[in-house]
């Protein structure tokens, strides 16, 4: 409430400051693109040298520097992993002036990427909790068997994974269903292959991955913890190229190139090879198979307008030969249409229309331990965001999103009764956002409104969500940052809270009688360069979950709901240190965190509460074409509930007719305090050796990867009924081969 008042007071100040500047010059605008492929470069910096004026490109590589006075200037464009290019221009009195940059990529120097340029790039960002990863960043992280986006982002501070064989992740104490996954603006509900072993997105068609671990800006909503915003590549504008990859898990083929005129395309297909590789090499029957495919056609016009149609399709199957074991089927697809461009001189619009579909099905066959179940999510939506550039270099953003989710969950419950939970409703959000700079203080604030909830449940203040990010340059290269944001979430996944591995994520809408899940994020941080090759970042966060949907521990009978509103909090400290020189690059991230869920007077840590999390990554550039990468991940144990004995529990079947006293009862496992104990520490050392080569027209790299070098027996799960212990990945060598023509 106090924060809302504060933001409302500040808004007129922002507006006044933007109006005070008088237009005297003309606008400079253009595109920054890769000189070889024509791929537009987001987050590139365009600066008028000798002035403090500049702009960053948006997700389409577009920039606009308003109100440039007549004169002769040198304009520099730079981006991570690219050469800096400077062009001289003469600005007259008639505008706007168009200036495009085509900048060449350079041989990757990891130290520069990690420490210098990226450090600068992040420093100019106001947000406290954003990480931007491009393809090169993703390729740095040693792979388990194949590149994976979600595996890669788990080296970031504040993000923890549940296991080696599961790329589900938890951000700053948030649950796994609190992450918003966007692919070109299309929501993806269950982006995992193979029980969550890795993501369904092939990193080769991803251009940029934005990871917001907290206090994300207006424009993103509907989830409490994080946003993973993936932007795909458009394909090459110059010539048709192909890329092939084979590893122990899958093979893939990617083709891209120009089509007709300004139209270009990219297509990628990936198919599992479990049966062929693991079956042959290790003699293991792996009844799992998957595929995914992506296709995108883009047209770009000289007036900066751009249209794209994209489709993503994936499927998984686990067909067990054992009739007593269940079969699983997953299907995921999303199709979308993207349009963007200038609709007025200074108004840039980006819009996405999409439809997605997710289906998961469990056929229990002869299994006695699970029942049949299925879940589907179907959603059609429209997202539109406009950016208004002002004379004073301030930016206004405003937009809306409408979507029509239909959620269905079918199951046979413990009673053997078939249940169907169905909901179809409208979600709509709107937002305004304002960015300004006052001296050394940068401000980025706004309001995100959950309009849809106004019509569907009792209105409350959680629907009005102020967001504010502030950054203050203390001294050159050092910033102090603070953020606040309020968030809500109307859909959740249901599964047993104590499942070690959530195989079956069923989405349901938060029941109308319950409040939406809500969270307030508070983040404070300091970051900067200690010296040119060493940058650091410290952040502290506190998240207050005003409302969470949890098991109703007081449920006694059918009248009591299964779920009730609880609350929670998570807090912690994150440190990130990056060092790089010509020979090696080092990356160290440490997170100290606490997460607690409260239901009435009962408080417990959820199963993903990890106290300490350390990620160390080192890359040695021994030769120009040879890199050695070592990653060491260490984490304190996750909570679990101990079994502390048994007793013979009477069911009192005939208590009203017969004496109860002669009943023997059935053994019941006595459990200790919920999540009151901790699993052993997790740690794993991975090693990768990558050799790059050129063979005439073929460019490629070969990799040797050693997973879990010292064969640590990390516990994956145990079955408390049978005592069976299953460990995570053992020592596991693998190899990859990438070829590009």
């Amino acid at each position, binding site marked *: 409430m106090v924060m809302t008042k504060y933001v409302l007071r500040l808004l007129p100040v922002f507006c006044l400051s933007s109006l005070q500047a008088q237009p005297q010059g003309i606008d400079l605008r253009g595109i920054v693109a890769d000189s070889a492929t024509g791929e537009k470069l987001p987050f590139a910096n365009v600066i008028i040298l000798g002035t403090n004026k500049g702009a960053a490109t948006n997700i389409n590589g577009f920039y606009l520097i308003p109100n440039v006075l007549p004169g002769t200037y040198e304009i520099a464009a730079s981006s991570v992993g690219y050469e800096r290019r400077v062009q001289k221009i003469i600005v007259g009195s008639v505008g706007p002036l168009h200036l495009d940059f085509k900048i060449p990529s350079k041989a990757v120097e990891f130290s520069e990427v990690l420490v210098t340029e990226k450090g600068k790039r992040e420093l100019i960002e106001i947000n406290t909790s954003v990480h931007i990863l491009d393809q090169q960043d993703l390729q740095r992280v040693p792979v388990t068997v194949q590149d994976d986006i979600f595996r890669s982002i788990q080296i970031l501070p504040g993000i923890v994974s549940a296991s080696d064989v599961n790329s589900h992740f938890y951000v700053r104490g948030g649950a796994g269903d609190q992450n918003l996954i966007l692919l070109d603006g299309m929501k993806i509900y269950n982006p995992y292959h193979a029980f969550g072993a890795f993501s369904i997105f092939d990193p080769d068609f991803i251009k940029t991955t934005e990871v917001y671990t907290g206090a994300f800006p207006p424009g993103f909503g509907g989830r409490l913890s994080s946003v993973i915003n993936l932007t795909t590549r458009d394909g090459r504008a110059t010539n048709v190229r192909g890329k092939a990859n084979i590893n122990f898990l899958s093979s893939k083929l990617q083709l891209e190139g120009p089509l007709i005129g300004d139209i270009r395309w990219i297509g990628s297909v990936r198919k599992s090879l479990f049966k062929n590789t693991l079956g042959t090499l290790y003699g293991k029957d792996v009844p799992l198979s998957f595929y995914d495919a992506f296709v995108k056609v883009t047209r770009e016009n000289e007036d900066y307008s751009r249209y794209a149609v994209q489709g993503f399709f994936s499927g998984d199957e686990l067909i067990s030969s054992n009739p007593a074991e269940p079969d699983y089927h997953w299907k995921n697809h999303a199709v979308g249409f993207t349009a963007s461009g200038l609709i007025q001189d200074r108004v840039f619009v980006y819009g996405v229309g999409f439809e997605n579909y997710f289906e998961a099905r469990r056929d229990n066959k002869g299994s006695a331990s699970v029942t049949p179940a299925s879940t589907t999510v179907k959603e059609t939506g429209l997202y539109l965001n406009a950016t208004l550039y002002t004379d004073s270099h301030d930016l206004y953003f405003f937009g809306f999103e409408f979507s029509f989710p239909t959620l269905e969950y079918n199951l046979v419950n413990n009673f053997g009764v078939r249940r169907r939970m169905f909901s179809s409703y409208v979600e709509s959000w709107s937002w305004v956002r304002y960015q300004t700079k006052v001296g050394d203080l940068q401000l980025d604030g706004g309001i995100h409104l959950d309009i849809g909830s106004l019509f569907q449940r009792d209105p409350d203040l959680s629907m009005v969500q102020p967001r504010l990010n502030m950054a203050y340059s203390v001294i050159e290269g050092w910033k102090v940052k603070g953020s606040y944001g309020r968030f809500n979430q109307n859909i959740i996944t249901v599964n047993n809270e104590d499942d070690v591995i959530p195989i079956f994520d069923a989405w349901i809408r938060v029941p109308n009688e319950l409040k939406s899940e809500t969270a307030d994020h508070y983040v404070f941080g300091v970051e900067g360069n200690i010296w040119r090759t060493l940058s650091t970042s410290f952040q502290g966060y506190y998240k207050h979950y005003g409302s969470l949907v949890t098991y109703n521990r007081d449920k006694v009978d059918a009248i009591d709901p299964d779920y009730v509103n609880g609350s929670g909090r998570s807090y912690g400290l994150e440190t990130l240190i990056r060092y790089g020189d010509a020979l090696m690059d080092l990356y160290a991230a440490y997170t100290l965190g606490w997460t607690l869920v409260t239901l009435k007077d009962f408080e417990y840590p959820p199963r993903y509460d990890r106290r300490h999390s350390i990620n160390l990554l080192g890359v040695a550039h021994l030769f120009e074409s040879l890199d050695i990468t070592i990653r060491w991940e260490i984490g304190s144990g996750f909570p679990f509930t101990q079994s502390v004995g048994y007793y013979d529990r009477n069911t009192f079947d005939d208590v009203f007719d017969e004496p109860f006293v002669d009943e023997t009862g059935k053994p019941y496992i006595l459990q200790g305090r919920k999540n009151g*104990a901790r699993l052993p520490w997790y740690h794993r050392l991975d090693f990768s050796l990558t050799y790059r080569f050129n063979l005439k027209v073929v460019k490629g790299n070969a990799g040797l990867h050693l997973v879990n070098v010292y064969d640590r027996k990390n516990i994956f799960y145990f079955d408390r009924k049978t005592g069976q*212990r299953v460990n995570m990945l053992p020592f596991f060598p693998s190899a990859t081969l990438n070829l590009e023509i």
Partner: protein
Amino acid sequence: MNRFICIVCAGILVLFSVGCDEAFSPKGPHTPQVVVYSILNPKEGRQFVRLSVTYDVEGFDPLTRSVDESISGAIVTVTQGTQTLTFRDTIVAREDTSRYKTPVAAYVADPFLLQPGSSVSLSINTPKHGILTAETRIPSRGYISVTNAYVLRTLGSLDPRIVVLIQIAPQARGYYLRYYIVYDVTQNNTVRRERRAFPQSVIIYASTNRYDFVYPKLERRSAEPFLQNLHTETVIIDQLGYQMVLEDIIEQYGADNLRFQHVLFELIQVDPPLYNYYNIVNGFQDEFSIRTDLPDYTNIRGGIGVFGSFTVDTLLVSLPSRF
């Protein structure tokens, strides 16, 4: 620099030596607890308290435990109003001897007459496990009335419902209303009394010409108690079910061999501990639940199990001897 390299190498060596395997058990330390079961039953003149202890086994199969360790030497007392009774040791034949061969060791008070509406405190003092206590309030007497009893006396009545009003005591959290047709059957010159329950409703599947009877179950009172007032619930019974059972009895034995006596309504009022325990161990009695966990309940301070009570009231609605 050399020192740094040495430290790193030493660290890696330590890691290799300790890192490979780490013993782990999902089991925590087992502290034996007393398990108490006692349900005060108004139909019985004697009441039981059963004591046992929690246990652990080698491995993870509890069925490997084949000896039921009872607690002997405990001092078990109940206090009802001003009266305190001490239970004595006894042995009860076990219903199912497939796992434990020995009879059930229990404590009994005989006679122990329950006073509906009274509070009863249980105290157990065991030599090894200390003192355990629990309380129950026995529900007061309830009342049953049938507003349209004529429906019961008419075969093929046009009134589709049998309306029963019941009054629930403030101490009761739930109730269970059961109903039976009571009749005498004459076969081979022998008369015997039988009763047959009839359902609350009938679900008819028109497409298959099948039907299912839905019998009553333990229900929660619809409103929380207000002072010491009796609370009235209305129970609607589908007359069709009654008719179908009645016709089935006639068809089975023949009208000439039957003498119908009455319809017995039996109202069981259940106190909160027994109500909670009964529902929780039976999956919340919620066939619509999507929960997959199996929680537990106890009202025993210092132990686990349940100490509860219920009362039974009846109403007889006389029937014509023949339909």
